[in-house]
């Protein structure tokens, strides 16, 4: 039992390196995956007897490659697999291989593997599904559960994605510096998609989907170990750590949304916050600002505030200002308006979001924010109209319930005023 748990962890940790290297040999996702599965089966037999290999990833690559080459040589002839003893001089071969497999080798293999999963021809949902299947090794039912779809639908999504990748011409040469930075950007975006898929959970699905956030963080840490001086990768990792640290406080016991101001900060995960703060601190020193770094810096200001009223909203307003310049989007302006309302009042914030209405006419958070601002100004009838729109646009019951709570509160205030004018 303990042995098996140890092997499971070693296989999980080696998976990206091993699949990446096998993909480089065979240039085919299915063959690489099958070779890896076969190597894992052999590891389950060999490791408990012989003890852990010096480099589990190198062992899995070598064994997987040998088994697959044997299979290919035999072609269509159906023969039983050779005995384990048939794989000769495993130890010698392993040490030679381990020496050749230095970090930089792994690095390009893993980057290529991640890059293949975020192939631009694949829609985002297929990119995430493929990455979770191939890089993370989650089973189809696990992924299906996290996405709240049926096993059959997920199986189909992954098969389609693999077929598209197989048809597309994937470059296998080692990427040069410009290609690498382009790929890193695409890979970072894909990892953030995985995270957001998990983060956008509602109260009743939060437990099911949290593993997606953890997997995204694991992938980001992996990427950061391969590229330890990329400030945007530090920023992305910090951003996800700081956001995920708040997960235990985001929903109450009934699965209802708890806003940042009302969250029990004692529930925030201090270990994740410490790592996130250390990373964003380090990233900012590079003076190569990027969108992930700015978002992480905003998350860091929230994380540093012991009480909501300690939040440095003026600094958050400035950071959103830089984000608007770097990545103009009405959603960012909407977020900035919340900071503006704390610094310069609800009136200024309302004026700021008024021009966004047309572009955000289908956006739940626009009407939720507008309603809350109007309520602060005592314009209750207008607030109620905005909240009604928000409920109509809510994607989860928790979102709708949250707005209903505002509505109920505003009605209670109305009633109280009628009694005590």
């Amino acid at each position, binding site marked *: 039992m303990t042995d098996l748990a140890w092997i499971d962890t070693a296989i999980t*940790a080696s998976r990206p390196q091993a699949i990446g290297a096998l993909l480089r040999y065979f240039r085919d996702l299915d063959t690489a995956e099958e070779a890896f599965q076969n190597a894992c089966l052999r590891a389950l037999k060999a490791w408990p007897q012989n003890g852990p290999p010096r480099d589990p990833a190198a062992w899995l690559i070598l064994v997987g490659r040998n088994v697959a080459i044997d299979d290919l040589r035999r072609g269509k002839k159906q023969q039983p697999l050779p005995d384990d003893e048939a794989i000769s001089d495993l130890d010698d071969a392993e040490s030679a291989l381990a020496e050749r497999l230095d970090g930089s080798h792994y690095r390009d293999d893993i980057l290529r593997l991640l890059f293949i999963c975020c192939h631009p021809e694949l829609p985002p949902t297929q990119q995430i599904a493929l990455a979770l299947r191939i890089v993370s090794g989650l089973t189809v039912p696990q992924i299906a559960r996290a996405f709240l779809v049926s096993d059959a639908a997920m199986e189909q999504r992954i098969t389609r994605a693999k077929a598209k990748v197989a048809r597309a011409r994937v470059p296998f040469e080692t990427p040069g510096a410009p290609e690498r930075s382009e790929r890193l950007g695409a890979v970072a975006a894909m990892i953030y998609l995985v995270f957001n898929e998990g983060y956008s959970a509602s109260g009743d699905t939060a437990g099911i989907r949290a593993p997606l956030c953890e997997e995204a963080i*694991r992938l980001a840490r992996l990427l950061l*170990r391969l590229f330890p*001086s990329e400030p945007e990768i530090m920023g992305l*990792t910090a951003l996800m750590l700081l956001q995920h640290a708040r997960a235990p406080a985001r929903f109450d016991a009934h699965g209802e949304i708890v806003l940042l101001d009302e969250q029990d900060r004692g529930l925030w995960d201090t*270990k994740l916050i410490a790592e996130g703060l250390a990373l964003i601190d380090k990233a900012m020193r590079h003076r190569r600002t990027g969108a992930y770094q700015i978002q992480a810096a905003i998350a860091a200001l929230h994380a540093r505030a012991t009480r909501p009223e300690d939040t440095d909203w003026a600094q958050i307003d400035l950071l959103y200002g830089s984000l608007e310049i770097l990545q103009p989007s009405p959603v960012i302006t909407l977020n900035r308006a919340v900071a503006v309302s704390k610094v310069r009042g609800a009136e200024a914030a309302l004026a700021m979001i008024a021009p966004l209405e047309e572009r955000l006419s289908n956006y739940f958070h626009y009407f939720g924010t507008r309603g809350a601002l109007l309520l602060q100004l005592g314009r209750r009838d207008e607030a109620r109209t905005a909240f009604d729109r928000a409920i109509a646009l809510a994607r989860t019951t928790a979102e709708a319930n949250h707005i209903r709570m505002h509505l109920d509160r505003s009605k209670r205030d109305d009633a109280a005023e009628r009694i005590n004018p």
Partner: protein
Amino acid sequence: MLYAILCYHDEDFVGSWSREEDAAVMEKLKLVHGKLAAQGRLGPVARLLPTTAATTLRKDSEPPVVIDGPFAETKEQLLGFYVVDCADLDGALDVARDLALANPGGAYEIRPIGLFMPGAAQP
């Protein structure tokens, strides 16, 4: 006589632990800590954050160079460590620069601490 016990492990492996697996290891360690503490033999205990959180100040140039990542020259060995309380990385780097002035050559790796138990053992 006090001994420093430095913990080395494969980061890939430890990083693949689930939250539950990590917690289970920490629980087992707590038993060991508890026994040592009861005997008055437990000194400071620190768990460092991952090497990706590390910054290194290299002392072999003037002014010293600050780089990302851990201190990785295998020809250099870990000879001791400080635990300092600083507001941020800049503060810690200032301390490291002061130390570097007093002690030339080599490098200081600055690693944020994830868990710190002050302990009670006296020399």
